[in-house]
């Protein structure tokens, strides 16, 4: 059980949740969150690490169904359970890097930007964020990016010249991620995408999150959620 520092609605149905504690985790990894003590809902909910330091870990989430609704009711000092860190996050990268987020898909990119900035071999971090109505967390992303581009109501993937980057990390709606991969024309850009799949355990036991990739069935929770863009079959 951990204590909530805040759980703030930062836009309609989008929450910024900060939990006290010295949690581990790398960019692109996730935790299973459980903000209730009852046997229903049965499953924890997976959320990417938005940020963490020695005092706290935080998440950005959108209210979708019952689980996130229950989460959204939590307040300062309420207790919550979280299990992780799970999965394989984004790889180390160098050169010019684009981070592309659609909606709450921005969640794993902030930690990515923060981690990448610490590395010498990284020349530039350009962050592209697309929103439906309102932009959120712009100030935070601005501080950690060399350049920040925002789009509201359009297609953020169109703003990114994928082939001009050494690495592209993307997370968001499937169409967005697909559009990014389809732009790839050269060897240069290494594209990595963070996928969402229904999960039972989060830790590689239940095989409910299997996704088909060009290198066979993979467990999204354990071998992902971040995969090389070219491995993924979009439906």
């Amino acid at each position: 059980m951990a204590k909530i520092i805040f759980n703030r609605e930062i836009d309609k149905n989008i929450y910024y949740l900060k939990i006290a504690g010295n949690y581990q985790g790398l960019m692109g990894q996730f935790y299973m969150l459980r903000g209730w003590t009852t046997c229903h809902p049965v499953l924890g909910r997976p959320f990417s690490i938005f940020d963490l330091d020695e005092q706290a870990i935080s998440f950005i989430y959108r209210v979708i169904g019952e689980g996130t609704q229950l989460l959204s009711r939590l307040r300062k000092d309420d207790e919550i359970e979280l299990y992780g860190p799970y999965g394989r996050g984004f790889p180390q990268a160098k050169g010019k890097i684009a981070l592309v987020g659609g909606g709450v898909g921005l969640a794993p990119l902030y930690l990515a930007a923060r981690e990448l900035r610490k590395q010498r071999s990284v020349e530039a971090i350009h962050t592209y964020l697309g929103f439906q109505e309102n932009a959120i967390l712009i100030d935070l992303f601005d501080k950690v990016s060399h350049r920040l581009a925002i789009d509201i109501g359009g297609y953020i993937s169109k703003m990114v010249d994928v082939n001009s980057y050494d690495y592209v990390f993307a997370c968001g709606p499937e169409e967005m991620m697909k559009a990014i991969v389809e732009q790839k024309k050269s060897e240069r850009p290494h594209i990595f995408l963070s996928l969402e799949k229904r999960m039972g355990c989060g830790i590689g036991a239940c095989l409910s999150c299997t996704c088909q990739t060009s290198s066979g069935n993979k467990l999204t929770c354990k071998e992902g959620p971040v995969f090389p863009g070219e491995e993924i079959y979009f439906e």
Partner: protein
Amino acid sequence: MNNMLQVQFGNITFQNPVIAASGTFSPDFEQHFDLSRLGGICSKGLTLYPRAGNKGIRIWETASGIMNSVGLENKGVDLFIQQDLPILKKLKDKGVRIIINVSGSTEEEYLRAVELFSKEEVDIIELNISCPNIKGGGMLFGMTSYAARELVRQVRKITSLPLVIKLTPNADNIVKIAQCCEEEGADGLSLVNTFNAMAIDVKKRKPAFNNVYAGLSGPAIKPIALRMVHEVCQKVKIPVIGIGGITNGRDALEFVMAGATCLQVGTANFMNPFSCARIIEDIENFLREEGIESLEEIRGIL
């Protein structure tokens, strides 16, 4: 680990009765607790040949339960023996019992898979007789006493490993099937597997699962599973592993009082990765508080 929790399952001694259930656990849980504390680990359902499992979504939440339709995705017996068994053997060396859950779509498949494991250092074969049987005309091995009896008889002939039959709650008459398995020389029974169930996505006007039906597990089913374990324990002498919605020590003790010797914890591992460890602690605390010296004292008292 305290002796208080030690149980005797036929000829096999478990350091405690708590077994991680098939398809719901993996050595990766080591991230959360010391797996050598477990009474046993049950492998995921293995088939002779690799299987890719089912398409479409594989898990769906229901009221205090989950439905799954993994479809026995597994790497096949050979690869499992090469890659995964060595990891389990390390736990075996620390006192954890290793149970191999075997499935098949024909009798031959079952037999060949069991044969392969019979050469390995595993503690128990758990025969999963609730998966589709092509031979029997689409029926399930575990649905009728006749089919169950035939299969157990054949498997019994070819292995001297302790043989536990995992029963399905969808059977015509679970007590009768249990008795048939006993008659055919099974060393124990485990029950229950998941309940055949359905969920519909009303917006899409489609079943949630490609296979239409899927298996229900978790806290929701516990009261029914407990009744079935109680019914079966009244009628057989071989030991029983109680399964179905066990989430805490109280649940576990209910199954013991209903007659179970060991317990398997499945869905609860998803609710909380420490579930097995906590359940072991809870049982121990209960015994201490109530001044009970061993689980024998309360087993099957109802």
